């Protein structure tokens, strides 16, 4: 099998090309020595089966950023038959250096000048034949977005693979790339001979939009307005989809699975249906939201607005050791933490990403909101309830702030904040859909094992030993609740609520359901009983703890797969438990001391 690598600068449409070539067959590959996810896909190139690998976007082959190191590692350790260098035609005057660097390494390369449509509109003319001769590699102009020129590029790549040379890896990269000034001079000379371009691009639409969207006073309100609308859209459109999914899973259970398992022993029935199926179902209900989130995020990312948001919010975020893009993800976290964590991939610096991922789980997501709505109705008057909810949102921001400020020293990112502002672009429906679907698939693929183990564990804890009612004080979970009493008593959480917190570890969506199982009541009766047993100080303390401690298993699974570090996942779990306890403790004890 042949190996073909895609290489290019950020914002050149490299991933769009990858998606176009790979279709639905892309998967996350496992490459020894490589610490980030690289997408790869097998496809037919002429008569060859080729594995195409999408390398991270880089500016420079010998730069110091994490992505640049990943690319160097990859090219040094994994031999390739062909490197497809993807450049943005409208910036060919500075991007050509990457192709020249690659040639200096002796790697078999082919140059794809992307965004042919934009270059034409901007009045940029490129003499492909002359450039191909000057570079000594095939050159093809394409538009990855619309597909123009892609068949020709594939044919050309296939012809190259026909020549049957052994694959090449590039060791000693930094030694071979000493002569920087030489590459620069050569680039200028080639561009002079083969490219005609105006001195500045006359992109009036982008300038006009920027004048409004980056306006000193209007920029921020417009940004918040836009975020609010997107957020509304995702969760207004997502809620019925999520309900539909839950209904579907319920129907499958009652119509197919229950009759099928009727003859099975009770423990197996319980494990399969109440443990695995319900737990996995709760997680599967995330899928519509994840697809929607990525549909919207693809639009925002590809439109170029994300870097504008970073421009607007950076001043405030810099003080917390974060940057403007982190803010967008935190806002998204208020809907659902999982896609927000996945969205941090746009950040290039590893430490910056980790700091942002440490802060995101404190965003009050829609699942936690359900628990709070349920409890505020029980414990507060209709006048008080909105204020209580608002204070929980403030607490969520405060937890993010405390976390970022405390950890910014340890997760220091010295990466300079320099971002390109691409022109506004409008992604095609195909681009948007492909991305949304791909992300949802990866979420399911990566989270599934982890989540099954988690739900089985919680099911076992609340169902063993079998001679007592499930989730009662006689079960293992009940014993754990009692055992935790010295820790949970000072924050006003009794052993019954402690069991609910153990359930909440799987997903906050099942906390209310768990309370029903624990108290053995439902609906109004449950609310009445809880209203009698809990006072508002205890309830508030429980809500603060629920807000701050680990959001759900899906979030933990995502934290682990995105950071590729079990240690980081443990840090996130440990830190959020500690912070939750400390804040609940301060609240509960001061409220009691004040006589409430």
């Amino acid at each position: 099998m042949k190996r073909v690598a895609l290489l290019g600068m950020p914002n050149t449409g490299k991933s769009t090309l990858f998606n176009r070539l790979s279709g639905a067959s892309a998967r996350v590959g496992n490459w020894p020595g490589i610490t980030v996810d690289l997408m790869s896909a097998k496809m037919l190139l002429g008569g060859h089966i080729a594995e195409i690998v999408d390398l991270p976007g880089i500016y420079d082959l010998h730069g110091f950023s994490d992505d640049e190191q990943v690319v160097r590692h990859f090219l040094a350790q994994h031999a390739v038959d062909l490197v497809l260098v993807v450049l943005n035609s409208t910036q060919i005057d500075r991007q050509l250096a990457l192709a020249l660097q690659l040639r200096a390494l002796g790697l078999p390369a082919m140059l794809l000048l992307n965004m042919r449509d934009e270059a034409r509109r901007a009045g940029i003319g490129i003499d492909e034949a002359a450039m191909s001769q000057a570079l000594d590699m095939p050159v093809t102009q394409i538009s990855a977005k619309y597909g123009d020129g892609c068949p020709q590029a594939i044919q050309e790549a296939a012809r190259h693979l026909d020549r049957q040379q052994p694959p090449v890896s590039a060791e000693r990269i930094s030694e071979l790339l000493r002569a920087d000034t030489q590459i620069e001079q050569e680039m200028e000379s080639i561009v002079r001979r083969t490219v005609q371009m105006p001195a500045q691009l006359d992109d009036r639409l982008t300038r006009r939009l920027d004048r409004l969207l980056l306006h000193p006073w209007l920029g921020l309100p417009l940004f918040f307005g836009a975020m609010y609308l997107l957020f509304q859209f995702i969760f207004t459109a997502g809620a019925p989809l999520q309900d539909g999914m839950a209904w579907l899973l319920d129907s499958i259970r009652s119509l197919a699975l229950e009759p099928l398992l009727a003859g099975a022993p009770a423990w197996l029935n319980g494990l399969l249906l109440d443990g695995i199926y319900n737990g996995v179902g709760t997680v599967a209900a995330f899928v519509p939201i994840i697809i929607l989130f990525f549909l919207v995020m693809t639009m925002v990312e590809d439109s170029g607005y994300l870097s504008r948001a970073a421009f607007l919010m950076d001043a405030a975020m810099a003080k917390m050791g974060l940057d403007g893009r982190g803010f967008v993800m935190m806002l998204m976290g208020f809907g659902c933490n999982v896609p927000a964590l996945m969205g941090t991939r746009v950040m290039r610096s590893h430490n910056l990403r980790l700091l942002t991922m440490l802060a995101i789980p404190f965003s009050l997501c829609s699942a936690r909101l359900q628990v709070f709505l349920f409890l505020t109705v029980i414990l507060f008057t209709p006048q008080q309830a909105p204020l209580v909810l608002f204070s929980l949102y403030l607490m969520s921001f405060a937890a993010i702030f405390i976390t970022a400020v405390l950890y910014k020293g340890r997760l220091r990112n010295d990466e300079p904040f320099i971002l390109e502002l691409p022109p506004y672009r409008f992604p095609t429906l195909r681009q948007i859909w492909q991305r949304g679907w791909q992300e949802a698939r990866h979420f399911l693929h990566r989270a599934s094992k982890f989540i099954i183990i988690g739900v089985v564990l919680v099911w076992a804890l609340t169902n063993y030993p079998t001679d007592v009612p499930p989730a009662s004080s006689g079960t293992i979970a009940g014993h754990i609740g009692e055992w935790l009493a010295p820790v949970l008593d000072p924050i006003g959480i009794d052993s019954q609520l402690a069991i609910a917190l153990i359930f909440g570890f799987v997903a906050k969506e099942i906390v209310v359901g768990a309370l029903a199982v624990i108290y053995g009541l439902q609906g109004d009766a449950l609310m009445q009983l809880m209203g009698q047993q809990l006072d508002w100080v205890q309830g508030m303390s429980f809500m603060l703890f629920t807000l701050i401690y680990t959001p759900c298993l899906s979030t933990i699974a995502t934290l682990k797969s995105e950071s590729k570090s079990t240690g980081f996942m443990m840090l996130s779990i440990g830190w959020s438990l500690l912070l939750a306890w400390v804040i609940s403790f301060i609240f509960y004890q001061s409220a009691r001391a004040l006589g409430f």
Partner: protein
Amino acid sequence: MTNVADLQPGESARIDRIDAEEALQQRLAALGFRQGKELQLVRKASFSGPLHVRIGTTDVILRVAEARRIQIQQ
């Protein structure tokens, strides 16, 4: 001696020198910041936020700390 952070929105200047360690120098060079190139400060973000700079066909945002490293001649 002036640097990019001293420019007012709308003003242009030529890059004289880039005082930065290798990593930053390379990143800037890859985006087109090289000696002798002409650049324009398009706008500044509120609350001493980043600067929006146009160089050739590329628009870039960078923080004031990085902009100070780019020495210019007006």
